[in-house]
């Protein structure tokens, strides 16, 4: 059952994309109603701060780590045997 459902979803990337977009809209929308009396720092006061933090952090991390891997860390898998 679950296999069929997942195959169904895999064949419809557009549906997945729009579900993700709808969810993101919900997440930002929800932030308007969150209570903020436990704020620890300035970012906690800004609506949508963690949306920006999430996407910038994620993209930055991918670019930084993959880049570092390509230019420096990457070796053959039997590097130490040579």
């Amino acid at each position: 059952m679950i296999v069929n459902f997942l195959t169904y979803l895999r064949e419809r990337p557009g549906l997945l994309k729009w579900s993700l977009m709808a969810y993101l809209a919900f997440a930002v929308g929800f932030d308007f109603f969150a209570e903020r009396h436990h704020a620890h720092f300035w970012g906690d006061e800004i609506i949508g701060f963690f949306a920006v933090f999430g996407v910038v952090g994620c993209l930055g991390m991918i670019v930084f780590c993959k880049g570092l891997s390509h230019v420096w860390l990457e070796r053959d898998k039997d590097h130490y045997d040579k």
Partner: protein
Amino acid sequence: MTSSIFMHPATIFIIGALLLPLAKLLRIQKVWLVLIPLIAFMQIHYLPESFGRVEWLGFDLQFGRVDQLTTVFLHVFTLMALIGTIFGLHIKDSGQHIAAWLYVAGSLGTTLAGDYLTVFIFWELMAVASVFLVWYRKTRKSIDAGYRYILVHTFGGLILLGGIFLHYQNGGDLTFVSFAPDSATLAQYIIMIGFMLNAAVPPIHAWLPDAYPEATVTGAVFMCAFTTKTAVYVLARGFAGFQALAILGAIMTLYGVFYAVIENDARRILAYHIVSQVGYMVCAVGIGTEMAINGACAHAYAHILYKALLFMGVGSVLEMTGRSKLSELGGLYKYMPISMIFTVIGGIAISGFPLTSGFISKSMIISAAGADNQTFIMIMLLLAAVGTFLSVGIKLPYYIWFGPNDSGLKPKEAHWNMQVAMFMAAFMCIFLGVYPDYLYNMLPYAVNYHPYTSFHLSETFQLLGFTGLGFYLMVKYLKPHDVSNLDLDWFYRRGAGWFMWFARKPVNATNEWISNVYKTIGLRLTMALARALSWFDWEGIDWALDGSARGVVEGGEQVRQFQTGKLQHYIGAAVVLVFIVLIVVVLI
């Protein structure tokens, strides 16, 4: 006293391990394997506050000390021993089970130890038992990795022992109590470094992602739970409030997650991710407030279960397909859907989805950092949470079960016992998320924290959703490649190579050169000297000795001739002598 040793949960596992071959002979190995951890899991609730005090060579050893801090760790360790053993139930080889149980015994012994010597004894038992979980994989790579693992841990154990000796010399008290950060001595810092090695704190972390991916399928499930979390326990016991730990812990969370983003081997991703997750706990220990220590314990509890679940899910794939590299996997969701569901539950729990255990434990540490006004550390922890969802929550399941290309593999679903074990861990992940008080009631301090606030939910919804967006945008760039990435084990792996090269080339060459020099110059000199001495011997000493010897012989001959042996000659000579004497006397 003797009876109190038998109530020690480590004793249950040690006796269970020693009798396992007998159980196998009686064909009750599987029953025995479930029974022993189950007994231990029940039995830890009935431990007295203090037991197993032994005096040995003038030292007071305490094998059992139970308080609120030990309770939560004992609970999760014995539960994990049960789940891990069930996961490996299909393995007929008793040796692996024995190694795993001795390893668990080491961990429980360390947790219950009331003094540093007992800590050290069980600490070493853990290292020695766990290396067999690597070696039992029986591949060339795992044997090499096992040797590196045991060497690094021996080194760490020696540092710990050195610290303990120095501490003893300073004060003479080896009771395992909390140290004050303001008056910490060198000895205490050395002990802390010994503990930090097992907690895989960079730069002494590389043994973990080196060895764990080479361990057996079940071995890795055990290893991911015990070594690092026992280290978190001893750090929380001895070094709460050391700011250095807070900083190092925050660095760990990012360091581990960075590597998890770029690695290709699924179990190496998870191993690096242990470094990241243990970073949260080390950081919380370093913050040291009641809320932070609670957070460290809660996160250790939750982490053991979901990380083991992830190792079990990925281990099932390795067991059924023989592969663990993301670049060689893909499209397995049709064939192993049950393992997939459990692994994804582990993935969302580690990422801290609401209604999972990660949400109620990780947020506690982040809030503790915020409440302690350590904003920068808090932001590092939040960024690590982003990386966690990216690497383990999405990347790992995506490339194993879905992926851009189908691997063409058609494996069977995992063995039934593996599924049972995964179900148990997955159940706990959700159960703790839905009913956090079950965990919160076990924590060392009273919990005054509510994870399900609208703000915290909103923060999590955004962080996770927009991390998903980041993955969606960059999925092509994230594609794993079949390479290995350098890490700090480079120093000792290359260092060992250089050492061997140094031994083979310069040392050997110098040795050769010196023996050549000796042969050409030294030997000739020695020969010349020998000849000179020989000449002197002949011409000098012998001449003198022989000369005097000849003199004695000649003198003797003359004396001999002089002594004729005839009586009339002697009488005549005596008469002549008398006359001479008389003449002399009369005339003078």
